[in-house]
């Protein structure tokens, strides 16, 4: 065992010395490799922690949401429907929600206007806004938010509070106002809601109650919390899949490049291997040495890039990804993700990057290793 370790150490010594002798080429190779891994790892870490964030945050979302659907479109639901739903046995805390979108022509941002429940009542003429809105309109507590209705009427609302920045991931674009203001602003009749939400007394009965609701309100769509969670689950898997497919191409070309690089041994490398064999290295010594070379390059690049990606996502808020996520949106939440890593993803990434690289280099390595020892004498 001691001999084995010392042998590996000596081979690594020699390999690293060899890599350093061809510094430019090998560092270039590692840089390209690291780049690919860095992008992949950033996306993976980011999507996973977002997914985790979503599943933790939204685990308190309403258990059942009932939407009215007309002509396949989401429509306002009437007060009478709330009564129907409330009477279903097992349903608890059924209430109508009022929320909607508002396009702010002043800066091109989309806000989510919402009426909080009874607990969080907001006085008429006042609003609480998310930190993103506050940033976009440069507002502070006590200042006034002016909104124009679709009839051109100007609404003047005083900012009574700004939602905490810690909650920005869910509240960045919120504008909370009183029910009266909301209805006046959107000219909504008093007997309609955007949708209904309710909780269920026994959480095992969610599906049963959802079925009951769709039976009594056939023109509605019922969304359970599990649906929401699963939506976010597959959303981020999907994104990951797409990016992986795109970057898979990059990875493939990289592996072809690696193959090419390893199989096209330079004359000086062939000479070197010939010398090693001539002075008494065995085929398996060369194989092991060259395998170390592949492993050091690929695993080294992987570990380096992974560490960078980790820092990027969790300490620099994935700044490089922001333009992609932001799209055309004006409001983008500023948030710090809680470090949350999925070992499976990391192992997958490792599998995807280190594995094919080493596999692609096996045959070229072997071909190099079986050079005749007497080639240097011919």
């Amino acid at each position, binding site marked *: 065992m001691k001999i084995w370790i010392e042998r590996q150490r000596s081979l690594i010594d020699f390999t690293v010395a060899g890599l350093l002798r061809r510094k430019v080429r090998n560092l270039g190779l590692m840089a390209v490799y690291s780049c690919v891994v860095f992008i992949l790892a950033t996306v993976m870490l980011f999507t996973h922690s977002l997914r985790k964030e979503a599943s933790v945050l939204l685990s308190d979302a309403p258990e059942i949401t009932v939407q009215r659907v007309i002509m396949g479109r989401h429509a306002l639901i009437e007060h009478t429907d709330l009564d129907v739903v409330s009477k279903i046995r097992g349903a608890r805390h059924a209430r109508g929600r009022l929320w909607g979108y508002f396009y702010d022509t002043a800066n091109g941002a989309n806000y989510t206007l919402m009426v909080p429940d009874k607990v969080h009542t907001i006085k008429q003429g006042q609003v609480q806004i998310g930190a993103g809105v506050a940033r976009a309109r440069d507002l502070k507590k006590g200042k006034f938010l002016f909104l124009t209705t679709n009839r051109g009427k100007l609404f003047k609302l005083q900012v009574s509070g700004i939602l905490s920045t810690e909650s920005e991931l869910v509240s960045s674009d919120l504008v909370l106002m009183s029910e009266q203001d909301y209805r006046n602003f959107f000219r909504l009749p008093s007997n309609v809601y955007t949708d209904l939400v309710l909780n269920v007394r026994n959480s095992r009965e969610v599906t049963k109650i959802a079925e009951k609701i769709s039976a009594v309100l056939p023109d509605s769509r019922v969304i359970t919390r599990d649906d929401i969670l699963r939506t976010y689950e597959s959303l981020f898997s999907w994104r*990951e899949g797409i990016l992986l497919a795109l970057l898979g191409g990059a990875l493939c070309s990289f592996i072809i490049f690696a193959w090419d690089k390893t199989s096209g041994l330079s004359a000086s490398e062939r000479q070197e291997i010939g010398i090693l064999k001539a002075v008494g290295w065995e085929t398996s010594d060369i194989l092991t040495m060259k395998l170390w070379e592949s492993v050091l390059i690929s695993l080294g690049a992987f570990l380096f890039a992974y560490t960078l990606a980790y820092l990027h996502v969790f300490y620099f808020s994935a700044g490089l990804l922001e333009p992609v996520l932001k799209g055309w949106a004006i409001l983008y939440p500023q948030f710090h993700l809680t470090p949350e890593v999925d070992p499976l993803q990391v192992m997958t990434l490792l599998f995807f990057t280190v594995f094919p690289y080493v596999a692609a280099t096996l045959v070229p390595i*072997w071909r190099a290793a079986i050079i005749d020892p007497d080639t240097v004498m011919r």
Partner: protein
Amino acid sequence: MIFHPVILALLLGSLISTLMILIGAVFGSQILRQWNLSSGSQKQLNMERRTYLISTFLMFALISELLSLLLYVYNAEQMSVQFVGAMCAVGTLNANIYGFPTLIAKIILFFCAALWLMINHADNQAHDYPLIRWKYGFLIAILPIALSTAGLQLSYFLNLETDVITSCCSKLFTPDGDNVTAEMAGLDEAFALGLFYVCLALFFIIGLRFYLTKHGHRLFALASAVLFIASITAVISVISLYVYEHPHHHCPFCLLKPEYNYIGYAIYLPLFVGTALGTGAGTLASFVQIPSLQETLTGFVQRLTLASLISILIFAGIVSGAIYLSALRLF
């Protein structure tokens, strides 16, 4: 099929390692026909050189199989969210009929590759390749296993549909089913635990006897294999209960979850290593009579046996520790 990075990685891994075993087997058949050590011809020389490539391939395939075994189970664990009714890996594996056969095939393939590498190592110690026909014959025998593992896995993933209602571990590993796993879970806990410790004790007696007297290698190989099955049974029927501190949670996969501090790895890794080394030592000992192997093989088998005993000792220690530290008291 679900478009998922892990699945792609698993398929890629199985493609590569199967291809490598296939190349090895094709080459093996050539060796079986044409090997002639006394010839100095270029053909013989080329064949000899290719043996290096094949051992590297097999080493690679072994590592790949080990990793993919982990990924496979872990992935099943994680994907369970996407299946209605599945709460852990068992549910995902039950999503279609190929799930569990794939798992079992992967385990078998892992042990075969490990055994092959041990035989290969022993053979390389001798001057005259005494086991060459043996080992390439074995490699050809591994090929169908590798192919069917890859095939099973492919069919499993191709037939994976998220809207299938699958069972979860509390259904499969609960006593009222009528399949093998249910039998395992349904064993009386005290009986299962007793059986497990009896098997452990027997394994150590047989192993120590083999280590000290070099007799009874077949018995030792058999004991390793039996202990593996007994251990898995014990994990399902009783050890998992202690880890989960829950009298009815029988799942062997949830052990791998972070909630239980990844204790599953600490349990399974030494068990797999110990079993592989134990069966390898027992099998190899039957070649000790070959003159050119006698001197090196004896030591090698001894080392393997010792390593196997130590691995199983670690396994037993961790399991016993988990039982001892558990808040659950069954008896």
